[in-house]
Every structure is written in C-alpha cells, then in structure tokens.
C-alpha cells in the first residue's frame, strides 16, 4: 500500500493544457475519486499517474518515491481501463496470468494466485473462456482480477462502470466498494458520474479545466462547494444560482419548499416563486420557475418530496421559503465562495 502524490503536475497537448498544475495527495489505502465533466483532464491526470503520458512539468510520487521518469511497468500500479482492455486472444486465466509472467512469478505459483483473485471476484467458472464469450459485468470482474493478482500498491480505475447498463451499474458499484474495502489498496477512480463519486469516494476531487476545483469528502463537496462550478456540477438537479448585488446566491432544490410545508420554523428566507412547469417523478416532483424579486433571469428548480402536499399550480406565484443556513454565496465574476452578506437577500 502506498500514497499517490502529484506536485505541480502539468500536461500540454500542443496549445491546450489538459492538466494545469495539480497538487494531489491521497491517504494510505484511501479511495479517491476524480470527478469532472468530459475534457476536464481527469483521465489525463490518471494516465500521468500511470506513466502512460509524461508530464510537461511537475512530478508524480508513489509511496514517497519519485516515479516521473519511470515507465508504467516500474510503478507497481494496476489500471483498469474503461474498455477493460482484455487480451482478446487469451483465455480468462491467461489474461489474469499475464501480469504474473511479467513480474517473474514462478509458474507453479500462478494457479494459486489466479484462483485467489478469481474466487475473490466470483469468476472461477469463467477461467477457460475467451473474453468475447463474457458479458459486460463478467469482463469487468476479469479486468479487476487481472489488476489485483500482482498485488499492486495502487489501483487506477478509469470509468470502469460506464460500459455497463444502468441496472448492472448499481450492483457493480456496490461490489467495487466491497472489493476495495476487503483488499484496502489505495485507489484513484475516475468518473464523470456524480452518483458513483458520492457512493464510492472517501474523498472527491472535482476537476475542471485541468485544475482541482475542490477536494473533500462527499458531504463537504455537496454542502460546502468551494465555488459556483462545484455547486452546479454536483447535485441533480444542480444548485440554483441567482444574481443579487454583484453576488451569486445559491441554494439546493431540496431546500426550496412551499411556505405552507415548512411548518413556521424560524430562520427562513421567504421568496415568491413564480411556478412554470411541474415534473412528476414518483418519489419527487421537480418544479421549474423563477424568483423575479431576486433575479428575473435565473431559472429556479424546487425538488419537492412526495410527502409535501400538491400546492403549486402552474402559472401562479406561490410563497416559498429556504432556510438561511442553506444559502451559499459566490462572487459573481470569479465564482469563488464568499461569506454571507449582512441583511436579507429579498
């Protein structure tokens, strides 16, 4: 087990900067998720850690050892690609044995190591098959078995769930988490899916434009976003942002409730909500509209649980409330988080 560290890591491809000065330090045995939209540099960062790309500037350290100039094979890492990259001409057991052959493990040990990895992932019955005979979920497990068989110091996973269908993804996510807890290896996991990030990560690093926008626990990322980008990228639907006196005022859709449902608690900000469209989603209703008294331009969403009675007819203005401690303030131009200003917002 080892920690992964990057110092001032930068990667340019021609004129574009894919990774722009990233300092990152994982904990021992930590599950760190790199989250960001496509093109934010998260996969490039992972490839820099793996050694598949060489950085324009900066250093990568694994277990305190500078590995920047070392090829991937000397970094004691294992990587699972989005495509799983199973060797199509080799059987499952030969796929799993491939890293053992490279590591110079004696042949009589292979059987035992292969069976250890395969049993941990429940794929012992597939060992004689070829990759083309496997389902998506089975391929993923073979890729994981191949990654762990060498007992690497660090796991690097590049969107390993994105090739699975939605139903399978939830169970695969659960298995992945259990798997990592069992073997306790430091893991860097790349995804663009915030549900995966929230569910798997001990900490999440949110990336955009090749920079880390915020790093913290899923709770910190969600409740205390460091800037407007994180606030709108994390959460579905995203945080509402309204312009007011050179600031952006933000609140989560689930905190925005009809006054009648709030039960007359103290510390509430009252806002008149002009209701547009209501979307019924079973457990929730999304109510789309505007708050003209604060920002007539901004679209606002309220997420009402089904326990809230139906009091929002389309086209009417309804009194809504949001708890004052749920309000977040950001600089209008830079998007950086600001302390709450004195006085009411409306």
């Amino acid at each position, binding site marked *: 087990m080892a920690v992964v560290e990057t110092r001032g890591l930068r990667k340019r491809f021609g004129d574009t900067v894919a990774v722009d000065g990233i300092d990152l330090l994982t904990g021992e045995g930590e599950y760190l998720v790199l989250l960001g939209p496509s093109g934010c540099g998260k996969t490039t960062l992972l490839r820099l850690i793996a*050694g598949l790309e060489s950085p324009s500037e900066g250093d990568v350290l694994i277990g305190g050892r500078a590995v920047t100039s070392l090829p991937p094979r000397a970094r004691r890492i294992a990587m699972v690609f989005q*495509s799983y*990259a199973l*060797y*199509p*001409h080799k059987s499952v057991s030969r796929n799993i044995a*491939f890293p053992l052959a490279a590591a110079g493990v004696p042949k009589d040990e292979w059987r035992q190591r292969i069976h250890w990895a395969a049993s941990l992932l429940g794929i012992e019955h597939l060992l004689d098959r070829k990759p083309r005979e496997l389902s998506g979920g089975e391929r993923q497990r073979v890729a994981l078995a191949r990654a762990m068989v060498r007992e690497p110091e660090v796991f690097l996973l590049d969107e390993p769930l994105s090739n699975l269908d939605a139903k399978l993804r939830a169970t695969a996510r659960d298995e992945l988490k259990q798997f990592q807890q069992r073997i306790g290896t430091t893991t860097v996991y790349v995804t663009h899916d915030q549900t995966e990030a929230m569910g798997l990560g001990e900490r999440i690093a949110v990336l955009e434009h090749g920079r880390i926008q915020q790093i913290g626990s899923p709770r910190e990322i969600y409740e205390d976003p460091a800037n407007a980008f994180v606030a709108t990228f994390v959460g579905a639907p995203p945080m509402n942002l309204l312009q007011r006196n050179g600031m952006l005022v933000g609140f989560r859709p689930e905190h925005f409730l009809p006054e009648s449902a709030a039960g007359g608690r103290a510390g509430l900000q009252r806002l008149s909500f002009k209701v547009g469209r209501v979307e019924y989603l079973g457990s929730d209703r999304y109510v789309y509209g505007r708050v003209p008294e604060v920002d007539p331009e901004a679209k606002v969403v309220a997420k009402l649980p089904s326990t809230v009675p139906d009091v929002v007819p389309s086209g009417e203005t309804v009194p809504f409330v949001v708890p004052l401690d749920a309000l977040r303030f950001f600089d209008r131009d830079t998007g950086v988080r600001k302390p709450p200003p004195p006085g009411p917002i409306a």
Partner: protein
Amino acid sequence: MAATAVRPGRVWNRVGIYTGAFVFSVLCGFPFLWAVITTFKQDADLYNPNHNPFTFTRGATLSNITDLFETTPYLHFIVNSVVIGIIVVGITLLLSLPAAYALARLSGSWGRRLGIGIFMVYLVPPTLLFLPLSRLITVLGLQDSIWSLVVVYPGFTIPLSTWLLMGFFRSIPRDIEEQARVDGYSRLQAVIRTVLPLTLPGIFSVVVFSFTLTMQDFIYALSFVSSSSRMTISVGVPTYLIRGDVFYWQSLMASAVIVAIPVAFLYNAFLDRFIQGFAMGAVKG
C-alpha cells in the same frame, strides 16, 4: 439443421449458392485439370487435332516429368525461387512491421499522410524503375546472382505491406497495448505479446502477397540473372522448354503444376488462419 425446418425459399437460396460455387470452382480448376492431363500425354496424342484433349487416346507417360528433371536444372529453379521468396518475405516483414507500427501509432496526423505517400511509391510501375535498378545492381556487383533479386524485390513488397499493416495496427485498440505496459511489460514486449498476435491476419496477407510477387516476376529475374543454375522458375522454365518455335508443352505444364499445387495448398492453409484471425478481430475484448 432439420430438413423439415428449412423453408422452400431457403432451399432455393442454398441451391443457388452451391450452384454458383460449383460453377466457379470448375472455372478455376479447369486449367489445372487440362494441365495435369497434358502433362501425361505422348507427343503423338497431344499434337493430333482429331484426339479429344481430355482423354488419353494413347497410353499415359511419365517421360515428360522425368525429362523436366533430367534435361533442365528444374530443381535449381525451385530452390532459387523458394530461397529468394523466403528471404524477401523475411526482409519485408522485418522492415514493414516496425514502419507500419510507427506510422500507425507514433507520428500523429503525419502518420496517415506518410502512409499514403508510401502507398503512392507502390503505384510507380516496376518497368519504370528498371533502368536505375539495373545500374544499382551493377554498382553493387550483384550481376548474375540471386542476391540481385533479393535486393530489388523488397522495393516492391515493402510499400504495400507497410500500408496494409498500418490498417491492421490501427484497428487494434491502444488500450490493449497500454494495459500490457501497465501489467509490467516494456513497450516492445507489449507490442510483441499483445499487438502482433492480433495482427496475424495482416502478417499472413503480407507473406502471401510478397511471396506471390517474387514468384510472378519475370522481367527482373530475366535481365539480372543469366546463368541457368541461378534462374528462378518463372525465367528458367521458358528458357529451357521453349526452343526456337518449339514448345515442350507437356513438360511446361508439368513444371507449372508441380509448383502450383503445393503453393495452392499452402495458401489454403493460410486461408483458414485468415478467417480465424478476422473472426477474432471482429470481437474486440
């Protein structure tokens, strides 16, 4: 498949396919059949226009084949052709595999353009290169040696082979190679252990193409080699078996069939590997 489950439309489809295949194979096999029959005919039988060319009016004879081996250096021709073919195939693979890999993987957008450039070289007609190449052979002092052909042929085989292999390398996902590098192999080892096995159909195509080209060439083999013991089949056979206006048809046919049949079997063996290889490539892990 159970006969009852096949619908009439399907049956006619089958009949059509098999009829077509039968006609086509007869069309392809017919010249061989004729050549084989001719090989065993006596002169008096072959040159009498009243005799049916496909039956033996007089008895069959082996003397045309024994003549071929006894009165001409036919064995030398075979050995020369095979040696040249194998060496040229070796040189072609040795140069075009790394070139194609580099063009497909390493040189970005320039790779494609250079690849097309290399392909264009192949489009230059061999006869146009004849004069400069014969000068080159003189400078190298390789006149009247099979090595002159070993030097010249790769110039024709490498461009197309490189271009062909580029396509195969491109069709193999980069992930697989990178995975091997993460799994503990150097780039070269990763290519040898994961990329090359997946490129086998391409390598077989290059082997077949290059070997065929060396066997077919006439003009370079004719002009660069003059001693009979160094001739290839394509030049030696007509030199010895066409004297003035006398064609030794039976021996000519024998010489063609003796070479063609093993080559046909060899290609057939490759054909199985092609199909297997393509089926494997179609489902990328």
